[in-house]
Every structure is written in C-alpha cells, then in structure tokens.
C-alpha cells in the first residue's frame, strides 16, 4: 500500500494492524473518500482486525478515470484489490453507495466475502442524486454550502471549494457516472440479495435512506437492522457507535471454557 495498480488504474489504499485477525475491507461512498473511516472507525476495528480501506476510482487519492462507476466495475476493482493484496477471504463494510458495492461483492464473490455490513445505503432507484448531476454548477455548490445544513460541520475555504468544484465538474460532466448509476437503478429489486448469509444494516433514524434499510432487511432475510441516532452522515456524526456496532458484528464472541 498505499498506491496499488488495480484493473489498469491506481487505487489509494491504507491498512491498519496488518498482523491482526481476519481482514475487514472498508468501502466509502460516492464523492467521499477513505478518510470517513480512517480517524475513528478503522482504528476501533483494528483493535481486533486487519483493516484495509481504499479510495474508489476517481475519489480521494485514487486515479481519476472517465468510466467504470457501475456496481459491477466497482466490485471488479474490489476483487482485483483483494488479489493484489493477497487477501483470500474478507469481511466487508460499505457506507452509502459503498454499501451497494459491498452487497454486490458479497453476491458475486461468495467465496471471497464473508460478513457484510451496510451503513445507510440508498436505493439506486431514487433519482434525486442523478438530478443533482444535471443541475450541478459552481453556483449550485456555493448555494449548497451556504444554505444546506452541514451536519458534518466541516467548512470549505477557497482552495477546497475550487478543488471540490473541479472534482464534481469532472465527475458530472466528463465521466459515465450518470449513465452507470442509471444502469444500476434496479439493483435492489433485481439482485439476488437473499444469497447473503450474514448482514448488518446500520441506518440513521433521521436519514432519508432509512426506508431502504427496512427494504433490505426484508430482501436479505436474515439481516439485522440497527438504527442509530443521526442522518445519512452517520459515520461522521456517530463514529464510536458505528464502530462499536461493526465490531460486535464482525468480532466472534470468545468461546467460554470450563
């Protein structure tokens, strides 16, 4: 690590506690990066696990490319990363869009993925994210930052504004991201989610994605839904609670002797 050649591009990855137990791979959401895990959730999980986190293509410090934003290509990147790192079987955690990637990885690679934890994944049939791509502009970003309550409390200065504007302009206007999102719109209704053996669903009580948590619980069958206080920014708002819930799910209980 931290720059790994995968599927013809370079992905940025970080690991913690390489000598730890079973490997957990953490997948972030669209327009985010691995930092959503790095400062709190990953160190907490690394107390018992080998933790690997990576930036999706065109996100964070990974290479920017014009294609491959669909769930299948993202899962291919994941598998190639496992191979490049010599990881045979892992558990997976995915946040938001990364949760959909995690579910797809579990369905497509059942011999490589054990437990799956999904944090506040949206329903890709919801067209609101795609609508933003159509109307995005510099003014949209300025207006969003000024008027929309930012529950992560991170403020953006001039350099960061320009950096983000460049990134969004590239993603929205120069890549296949919208067409790829549209192609995955029926993922939740069409994917064989019932094949997933062990799944934790973590959702924010105030999240506009909560209804997807209930739907996933029905579709997956034996999934457990845990609702925490917060909205879609749950990992930033409640990193300790999210980390603890993940740790309880991923860490087997010790066997009692005597």
């Amino acid at each position, binding site marked *: 690590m931290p720059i790994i050649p995968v599927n013809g591009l370079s992905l940025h990855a*970080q690991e913690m506690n390489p000598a730890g137990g079973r490997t957990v791979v953490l997948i972030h959401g669209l327009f985010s990066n691995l930092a959503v895990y790095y400062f709190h959730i990953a*160190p907490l999980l690394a107390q018992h696990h080998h933790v690997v986190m990576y*930036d999706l293509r065109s996100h964070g410090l990974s290479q920017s490319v014009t294609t491959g934003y669909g769930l299948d290509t993202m899962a291919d990147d994941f598998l190639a990363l496992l191979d490049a790192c010599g990881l045979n079987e892992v558990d997976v955690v995915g946040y938001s869009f990364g949760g959909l990637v995690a579910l797809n990885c579990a369905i497509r690679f059942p011999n490589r993925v054990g437990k799956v934890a999904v944090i506040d994944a949206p329903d890709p049939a919801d067209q609101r994210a795609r609508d933003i791509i159509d109307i995005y502009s510099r003014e949209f970003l300025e207006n969003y930052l000024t008027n929309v309550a930012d529950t992560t409390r991170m403020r953006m200065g001039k350099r960061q504004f320009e950096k983000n504007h460049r990134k969004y302009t590239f993603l929205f206007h120069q890549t296949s991201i919208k067409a790829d999102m549209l192609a995955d719109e029926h993922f939740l209704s069409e994917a064989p989610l019932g094949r997933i053996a062990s799944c934790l669903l973590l959702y924010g009580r105030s999240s506009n994605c909560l209804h997807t948590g209930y739907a996933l619980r029905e579709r997956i069958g034996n999934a457990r839904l845990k609702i925490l206080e917060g909205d879609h920014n749950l990992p930033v708002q409640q990193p300790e609670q999210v980390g603890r819930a993940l740790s309880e799910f991923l860490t087997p209980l010790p066997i009692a002797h005597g």
Partner: protein
Amino acid sequence: MDYVASTQSTSLDKSTIFNQLKAFITEVIGEEFIEDLDITPQSSFTKDLEMDSIEIVAFSEKVKAHFGSHIDFTGWLSNMDLDELIALNLQDIMTYIAHAHYSG
C-alpha cells in the same frame, strides 16, 4: 508510493519537528498553495491551512512513516472528537511527537 526514511535522531527539538511537519504539509497540498499561507505552530489544519480529510490522512501517513512506529499517531487522533480534530493545530502535534518520542 511516497517514501520517507525513518529518523534515526535521538534528540527532537520542536523547531526540527515544526520544519518537518511544514515540509509534509507542502508535499501534501502543493508548493503553489503554500506561497499564500503563513504556516506557524498555531496554524490549524482545517481553518488556517484548509486541509481536507484526505489531505490530513496523507499528512498522518507521512508523520507515521517519518517519526517511527513507536508513535501511535493514528491512535492519538482517534481519541479526538470532530470538534477537536477541526481545532487541531501544528503545536498540538509538535507537543505530542516530542512527548511520545522522549517517553517512547
């Protein structure tokens, strides 16, 4: 991959640490942006230096690679809540590294 050799030095004064941290910040956010910044020990990462979370990750990895494995830099950061991370400045890190180095 960026490679930074681990320090073999046994004495770490704060000005040495400050200059090293400043060099890491320059590597992470780029020379062209550094010219507009007055980096001091009181500079905060998010407000004054305008570093975003992935830049702080890159900075943290450089600190870990340079100052050695006996400094649990990520573990130290993980004990901070969001407000503390936002308020974090270079002085805080210099104090932590100097203390961890001498007690490690």
